[in-house]
């Protein structure tokens, strides 16, 4: 065994020949072959294109990636370059796991706002893509129910949206009017549903200070959101928290749901499955504008890395439009730049997923930029699940506020 490792190590040295410094890169895409292939392609282009740095990739299953990083950080074993989910970055930066990423301004010029992660006035992470959520439906559904097609400039209002759901329900043609994806626990809840709350006029925390959730998460707007949210489930408009994950994957495609609130990553599969009149509609405007969540996976550099300039060199290299386009074509994500979008099959002008680029560009609102987000997101998820299951709205939101405030206090204000 040991002999084998030695020989492999020697082989590695022999092929590199020049004195490249090795930088380890941790990535969340284990099990996704296409994604891994594209990343490996970028890495080998980078390694052979210059003589200073050599990047080596280690991939992790996404579901447990954050746990792996935190464990490695506790054990003092972080790699040089790591990828980080946008809203989590401030937590790691504040904790001292990450250092600012010294990329040139020119490299990130013109990128979608949410694909550049900033904390404390510095750039910490940069993403090759963003993700967006849309209201999936079919043209035939709208026709059948006699509904107008909402647009970015003129999205559905709260009343229109409610009426659409009611009409779908009373038509009797669907198991449920709306699939929210309640089967996807975890980050999906705050990512997908906190924009509803924001559109009502509330928020997860008070973004003016980031020191409390009082008023934001349990004020009148939040209560109105909570009542509306609860009604979706008590009125039988949407499947609840016990939704079978398989139904989430196939329900809309099979025509059992009239509408689905889903991400752009599921769009290609929906089209491929033969839903050829699929529509990707913007989020309804509940009174305070129409918004969707933003910021996806991004690259950053760990605090213990001795060569941040090497990490930055790699990130700048990876930010080339052709790679952004390759990722987009491969796994269906939204490229960070217009130029790259134009090079893709789906997001280019007239492509089937073009609406998503517009959504990202026009509606994206990042989740609260605070180290406290990680905990607040968990609290928010539980509150939404509880309300969906019939808990008292005001009491549940109060309790969520108390828990978020207690956490902020226990962390000394998270540096705000």
């Amino acid at each position, binding site marked *: 065994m040991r002999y084998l490792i030695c020989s492999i190590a020697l082989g590695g040295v022999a092929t590199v020949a020049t004195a490249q410094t090795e930088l380890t890169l941790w990535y969340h895409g284990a099990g996704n072959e296409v994604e891994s292939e594209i990343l490996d392609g970028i890495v080998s282009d980078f390694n052979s294109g210059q003589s200073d740095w050599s990047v080596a990739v280690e991939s992790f299953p996404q579901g447990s990636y954050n746990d792996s990083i935190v464990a490695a*950080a506790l054990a003092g074993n972080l790699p040089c370059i790591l990828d980080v989910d946008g809203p989590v970055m401030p937590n790691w930066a504040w*904790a001292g796991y990450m250092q600012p990423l010294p990329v040139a301004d020119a490299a990130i010029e013109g990128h979608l706002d949410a694909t550049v992660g900033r904390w404390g006035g510095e750039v910490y992470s940069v993403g090759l893509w963003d993700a967006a959520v849309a209201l999936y439906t079919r043209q035939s559904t709208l026709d059948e129910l006699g509904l107008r097609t909402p647009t970015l400039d003129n999205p559905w209002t709260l009343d229109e949206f409610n009426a659409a759901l009611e009409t779908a329900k009373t038509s009797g043609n669907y198991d449920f009017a709306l699939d929210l994806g309640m089967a996807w626990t975890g980050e999906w809840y705050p990512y997908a549903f906190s924009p509803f709350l924001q559109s009502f006029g509330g928020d997860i925390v008070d973004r003016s200070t980031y020191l409390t959730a009082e008023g934001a998460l349990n004020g009148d707007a939040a209560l109105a959101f909570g009542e509306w949210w609860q009604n979706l489930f008590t009125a039988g408009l949407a499947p609840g928290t*016990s939704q079978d994950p398989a139904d989430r994957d196939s329900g809309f495609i099979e025509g059992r749901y009239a509408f689905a609130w889903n991400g752009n990553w599921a769009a290609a599969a929906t089209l491929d499955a033969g839903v050829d009149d699929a529509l990707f509609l913007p989020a309804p405007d509940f009174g305070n504008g129409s918004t969707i969540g933003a910021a996806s996976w991004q690259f950053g550099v760990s605090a213990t890395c001795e060569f941040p300039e090497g990490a930055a060199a790699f990130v700048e290299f990876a930010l080339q439009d052709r790679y952004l386009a390759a990722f987009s074509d491969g796994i269906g994500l939204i490229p960070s730049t217009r130029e790259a979008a134009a090079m893709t099959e789906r997001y280019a002008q007239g492509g089937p997923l073009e609406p998503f680029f517009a959504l990202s560009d026009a509606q994206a609102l990042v989740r609260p930029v605070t180290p406290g987000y990680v905990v607040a997101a*968990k609290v928010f998820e539980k509150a939404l699940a509880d309300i969906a299951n019939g808990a008292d709205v005001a*009491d549940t939101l109060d*309790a969520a506020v108390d828990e978020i405030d207690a956490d902020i206090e*226990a962390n000394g204000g998270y540096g705000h």
Partner: protein
Amino acid sequence: MDRTLPASQRGSAMASRLTISNRAGWGFALPAFALITIFIILPFFFAFYLSLTNQRLISPNPTQFVGLENYRDLLGLSVITLGPERDENGAAVLNELGDLTYPRVRTVTRNPDFPQYRGMREWFRWRSGENARVVIASDVVFWKALANTLTFVFFIVPLQGGGALLLALLINQKLRGINFFRTIYFMPVVISIVVISLLWRFIYDGGDGLLNNILGALSFGLFPPVDWLGQPETALGSIIVMSAWQAVGFHMVIWLSGLQTISPTLYEVAAIEGASKWQTFRYVTWPGLRNTAVLVLIVITMQAFALFAQIDVMTNGGPLDSTQTLVFQAVERGYGKQDISGGSTISVLLFFIVLLISLTQRYLTRDRS
């Protein structure tokens, strides 16, 4: 504890013949004792220390010693009394069902006049005369998790232990092909509980799940579909049934090994005496299974208190906290919410609760001879 420390109690004749052998004794026990000390006991003491601090999993802030504050935050309980709502004439206001109405608990817990109740939430309430007595807790989820864990243990022990014994009796016959059946019954045991939980999500699905389909077919459509994991009334029960089903084959094998050590002559004697089947079980089989029973009881209890994977995969503690458990909460706080001191506090409390229960079990199952 005497059951586990047999030699010293089992007569001094033994001790005199087997003279004291300190060096050999420690020598034999040392590898095991050292490993358990390093990899379980030391980390546990570290967890105990963490429970006395405000340590976060991720934080640049310095750790402070906070004494028993974490314990107070978890265990804080109070009872408040709410008088019914009255109109201006002082008559109690009734709702449309004719019941008394009460002011909301938040009028007390979010009231600056009662800083001592700040942040507490209702756990449960009862009526006493016209008034409502409300038990409020500073950590309702913890108390619910404790109650659920105890409920789980209370039901799973007889269900799994008794079911396994029935299976063992069923399978302990001389029949062609009995090995085949034994293997089938054991099969769920060899599959990881995570995998089993994933499969059972399909089975328990509220709309067109397998269980609803089967029950519907058996009752000719009279049985309405139930959202097994989606309702607070059925979620924990569903998890109990699945957990019992998964591990019952394992305990069947333990019972079976106990059954096969009972001497056949005892059964012959019972047959000659004309004992009924029940009498044979009661006076021959059951006494012969004493040690096995203790083992099965303790193993099931310990595993039941550690309930985690099923919850993590199937319900995440929901709906409405009806499947929260202590270990799930310890993990959720320690890792998910980065509150490692809070998570450790639950672990320490769990340790003492289980210690108390297992000492009681040992006392109740001790040798009375």
